C-alpha cells in the first residue's frame, strides 16, 4: 500500500487523461463523469495522506530505468502542500471548464491534455529524484502546448509558439544543470542531499544559475516571463491552469526544491547565490507590477500580476531564513487561490457580459454581483489587506527578510503593495462606483461558472482568517519548515 499510493495518486489524473483522448466528441456525460470522479478520488486520497504524513508517514515508489535513471515518487510534506493545491483547484477548474465550454468542439482533446497536465504536475510534485523531476517537468511542457493552442486561431498559435520558444531552451538549461551536477555527484535524490564538495564553487554557481534559468522560465522570472502574458490568448480555464494549478507553480516549486533539497539552504548562502536570486525576485515583483499598471485588458493585467506574485515564493525561498520560507510556501497556496478566483471572474465577465477591457467593468457590480464580490475579494487579497490570505504571506515574508538580515525586503514589499493597490483599486472603483453605460448587458445565470469562483474566493478569505488554526496552509508550511528544513 505504501508503494502503491504515490502511483495511485498520479493515476487518478493519468487514467482519465488517457481514456478521454479516445472518447467521442459528443459523449459529454462520460467524459465529465470520468474527469470529475478522478478529481474527487484524488482529493480523497490527499486528505487521507495529509493526516498520515502529519503523523510522520512517508510513501515511496520507484521505477528503475537505465542505471542512474530512477523514477522515484515520494510523498513528503512539501509535495503534499503542492498537490493538495493543484488537486483542489483541478476539481474547481474542471467544473468551471465544463460549464465554460458547454458543447463546443474538440473537448475530448482539451480534457485529455488538461488531465495529462495535472498528472504531470502531480508527478513533478511527488518526484523524489532530480531526473524524475525533469521527466515530469518536460511532460508538463508538452501537455500544456495543445491547451495554449486550443482555439487554433492565429493569436493562440503564436502564444503556443512563444511558450515552446521559452520552455524548450529552459528545459535544455535544466537538463544541462542536472547532468553537470550528477556527472560529478552521482544521481541526486531529494532525501539524500548530494556531496557538493566535489565541485568547485565556480562550477556550483554556474550549475545553480542553470537550474534557476531552467525552472525560472516556468516561474516567469524576469526576463524569462515573456510567454506568460502572451498565453492570454488561451481560453479562461487554461489561464487558470497556467497561473494557479500547474505551470507557473511548478516553476516556483522547482526553485524551492533546488534551493532546499538539491543545494541546501546553507550551501546557497555560503555560495553567495541566495541574495542575487532574491534581488532578481524583487526586480520581478516590481517589474511585473509596473507592467500590470499599463495593461488595459483584464487578463493581461492579471497575467503581469502573476509574474509579480509568483516571485514572492521565490523571494521567500531565496532569503533562506525559516520565516521567509514559511511566507514563500504559504504564498504558493494563497496566490493560487486568489489568482484562480480572479481568472474565473475574468472568464465570467468575458463569457456572460462580453467584457475584456478594463473600461467595460463600469458598474458591473450591480449586474454581476456574485462575480464582482469574488473579484473584489481576490483583488484585496492580492493587495495584501488584512485579514486576507495575501496579508499573511507578506507578513511572514517581511519578518523573514528581517530574520535573514535583509531589511530592504520590507521596502520591496511596501512598494509592491502600493503598486498592487494602484492596479487593482481602480478596477474595484469601476465595478462598484462608476455608473454602467446605457447599453450594458450581462447576467450570471451560469452556476457552473459562478459557484467555483465563489468557492475559491471563500477559500482565499478562509485561509487568511483561519491562518492560526491547525489545518490551515500556514500551519502546514510551518510544519514543513520546522520538521524538514529546520536548523
Amino acid at each position: 500500500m505504501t508503494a502503491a499510493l504515490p502511483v495511485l495518486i498520479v493515476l487518478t489524473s493519468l487514467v482519465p487523461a488517457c481514456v478521454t483522448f479516445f472518447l467521442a466528441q459528443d459523449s459529454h456525460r462520460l467524459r465529465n463523469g470520468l474527469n470529475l470522479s478522478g478529481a474527487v478520488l484524488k482529493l480523497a486520497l490527499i486528505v487521507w495522506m495529509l493526516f498520515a504524513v502529519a503523523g510522520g508517514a512517508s510513501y515511496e515508489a520507484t521505477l528503475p530505468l537505465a542505471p542512474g535513471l530512477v523514477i522515484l515518487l515520494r510523498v513528503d510534506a512539501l509535495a503534499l502542500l503542492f498537490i493538495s493545491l493543484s488537486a483542489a483547484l483541478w476539481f474547481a477548474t474542471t467544473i468551471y471548464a465544463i460549464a465554460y465550454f458547454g458543447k463546443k468542439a474538440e473537448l475530448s482533446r482539451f480534457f485529455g491534455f488538461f488531465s495529462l497536465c495535472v498528472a504531470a504536475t502531480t508527478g513533478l510534485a511527488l518526484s523524489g529524484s532530480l531526473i524524475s523531476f525533469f521527466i515530469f517537468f518536460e511532460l508538463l511542457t508538452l501537455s500544456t502546448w495543445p491547451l495554449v493552442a486550443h482555439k487554433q486561431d492565429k493569436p493562440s498559435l503564436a502564444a503556443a509558439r512563444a511558450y515552446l520558444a521559452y520552455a524548450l531552451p529552459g528545459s535544455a538549461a535544466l537538463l544541462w544543470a542536472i547532468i553537470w551536477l550528477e556527472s560529478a555527484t552521482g544521481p541526486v535524490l531529494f532525501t539524500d542531499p548530494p556531496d557538493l564538495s566535489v565541485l568547485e564553487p565556480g562550477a556550483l554557481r554556474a550549475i545553480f544559475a542553470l537550474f534557476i534559468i531552467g525552472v525560472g522560465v516556468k516561474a516567469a522570472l524576469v526576463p524569462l516571463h515573456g510567454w506568460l502574458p502572451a498565453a492570454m490568448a488561451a481560453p479562461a480555464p487554461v489561464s487558470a491552469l497556467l497561473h494557479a494549478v500547474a505551470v507557473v507553480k511548478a516553476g516556483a516549486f522547482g526553485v524551492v526544491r533546488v534551493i532546499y533539497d538539491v543545494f541546501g539552504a546553507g550551501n546557497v548562502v555560503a555560495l553567495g547565490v541566495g541574495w542575487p536570486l532574491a534581488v532578481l525576485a524583487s526586480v520581478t515583483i516590481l517589474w511585473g507590477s509596473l507592467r500590470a499598471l499599463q495593461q488595459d485588458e483584464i487578463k493581461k493585467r492579471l497575467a503581469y500580476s502573476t509574474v509579480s506574485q509568483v516571485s514572492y515564493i521565490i523571494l521567500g525561498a531565496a532569503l533562506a531564513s525559516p520565516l521567509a520560507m514559511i511566507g514563500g510556501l504559504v504564498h504558493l497556496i494563497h496566490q493560487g487561490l486568489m489568482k484562480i478566483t480572479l481568472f474565473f471572474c475574468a472568464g465570467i465577465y468575458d463569457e456572460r457580459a462580453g467584457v475584456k477591457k478594463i473600461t467595460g467593468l463600469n458598474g458591473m457590480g450591480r449586474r454581476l454581483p456574485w462575480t464582482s464580490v469574488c473579484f473584489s475579494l481576490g483583488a484585496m487579497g492580492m493587495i495584501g489587506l488584512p485579514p486576507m490570505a495575501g496579508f499573511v504571506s507578506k507578513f511572514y515574508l517581511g519578518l523573514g527578510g528581517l530574520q535573514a538580515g535583509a531589511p530592504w525586503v520590507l521596502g520591496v514589499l511596501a512598494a509592491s503593495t502600493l503598486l498592487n493597490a494602484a492596479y487593482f483599486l481602480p478596477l474595484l472603483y469601476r465595478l462598484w462606483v462608476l455608473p454602467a453605460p446605457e447599453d450594458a448587458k450581462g447576467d450570471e445565470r451560469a452556476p457552473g461558472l459562478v459557484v467555483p469562483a465563489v468557492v475559491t474566493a471563500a477559500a482565499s478569505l478562509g485561509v487568511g482568517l483561519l491562518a492560526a488554526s491547525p489545518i490551515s496552509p500556514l500551519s502546514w508550511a510551518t510544519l514543513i519548515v520546522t520538521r524538514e528544513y529546520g536548523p
Partner: protein
Amino acid sequence: MSALVAVLTLPLVAALGVFVVPARLRVPMALASAAMITGAALALCVTVARGGPVMLMAGGWAPPIGIALRADGLAAALIIMTALVMGAVTCAAWFEASPARAGPRMAFGFWPLMLLLWGALNAVYLSRDLFNLYVGLELISLAAVALAALSGTAQAFAAALRYMIFALAGSLLYLAGVVLAYAAHGTLDIGLLTARTPAQGDALALGLMTAGLLAKTALFPFHVWLPPAHASAPAPASALLSALVPKASFLILMRLWFEAMPDLATPAALLALAVPGAAAVLWGGVLALVQKRLKLIIAYSTVAQLGYMFLVFPLAGGGGAAQPWAAGAWTGAVFHALSHGLAKAAMFLAAGIYIAAVGSDRLGDLRGLARALPMTGFAFALAAITLMGLPPSGGFTAKYLLMTSAFAAGQWPWALLLAGGGLLAAGYFYRPMVALFARDARVPLLRSIPRAWQSVPLVLAVLSIMLGLLSATPFDLLQVGRPPPASEGL
C-alpha cells in the same frame, strides 16, 4: 542457436519464395514470413538475454578456417528493432498496396526486396568476419538502391543512381581496407584481429574501411545522396532506408573500432570521426528547417540524427568506470540507433498515410489533417518527441547517457551539441506539427484510411517512447557481451 539460423535464412528463403508463388499468395506469404522472422528474432533476444552471447561456427569450423557468427546483446537488440520496423512496414505496405492503385513495380518488387534487405541486415548484425560483412553490405546496397528507385519516376531514378555511386565507392574503399588487413594478418575474423600483432598498414586498412562505411552511413559530408533517395522512394521503402540501412554500416564501424582494432584509436582519429558527426547534427538540422516537403524534412532529420551516433567515439568510457553508467556513451549511442529506427520508421509511415490521403506531402497541403487522421497526427507527434530527445522516450535515455558521459569525460562541448541538436529538432518538427494541427477547412481525402493502417505508425511511435520508459531491460540486454573498450574507453 536455431533462432540464430532462422533469422538469417528465413528472410532469404522468403525473398525467393515471394518470387515463385502466384501473385495472390505474395502478400499473405510476406506477412506470414514476417511474423515467423519476428518470432525467431524474439526467441534469439530471449536466449541472449538469459544465456549470454550465442556463437555459431559455420560448418563446425572455428576461425580462421571457418566463419563465425555471433549474437551478442548489440546484435540481438538491432535484430529485434529491425524485426519490429520490418513487421510494421509489411503491414503498412499491405494496406497501402492493397487496392490495385499501386503500379506493378511496387506490387511485385517491394516484397522480395524488403525480405532480401531483412536477411542482409541480419547477416551484417551477426557476422564476425570482415569479408562476410562486405557481402552483407553489398546485398544491403543492392536491395536499398532498388527500393529507392521503386516508384519509377525520373526523380527517383536520378536519386537512386546517385545513391548507387556513393554506395559503390563506399564498397570499394571498404574492400580495399579488407584486402590490406588480410594481407597483413592472414585472417578477417574480428575476434582474431583483436589479438593480432599490430602491423604497419593497419592504420591505412582501418582508415579505408572507415571511409567506405562513412559514405554508406551518409555521414556529413557524404550525406548528399540521402535526402533525395529517401524522399523519392515510396513511404514504406523510405522507412526501411532511413530507419535501418544506415544502422548496418554504423554497426560495422562500432565492430571495427571497439572490437577489431581498438588499439588504433588515437584522440585525433576519434575527433576526426566525431567532428563530421557534429557538423551533420547542425547542417542536417538547418537544412531540415527550410524544407517545404514533409518527407524531405524527415530525411534531413535522418542526416542530423545519424550524426549523434558518431559522438560515441570520443565519449566512450567517459573516464568514470566507477560510475553506475560505465559504458554509458556506448550504450547511449546504441539506444539512439534503436529509438531513431523506431521513431523514424513511424514518421515515414505516417508520411505515407498523408500522401495516400491527400496525394502530396507539401506542408501547405497537409494543413488541418490532424483532425481527419488523429491517430496518425498523434503518432507523428510521439515520434517527434523521441527524435527531439524529450523524456520519457528512448531518445531521451540515449541523450542522457551521452551527455552524462560527456561531462564525466570532461568534454562538455559535446553535451552542448546534444542540447543544441535537440532544440534544432524541436524547430524543424514544429513546422509540420503546426501545419497538421492548423484549423483549416476539412480537406477531402482521396481515399479512406482504415484505423488499422493508422495504428501501424502509432505502434512504432509508442514503442520508441516505451524504450525510454522501460529502459532497464534493453539496457541490460546491450551489456551482454559488450566489448571492453565500451566501458574503458578507446
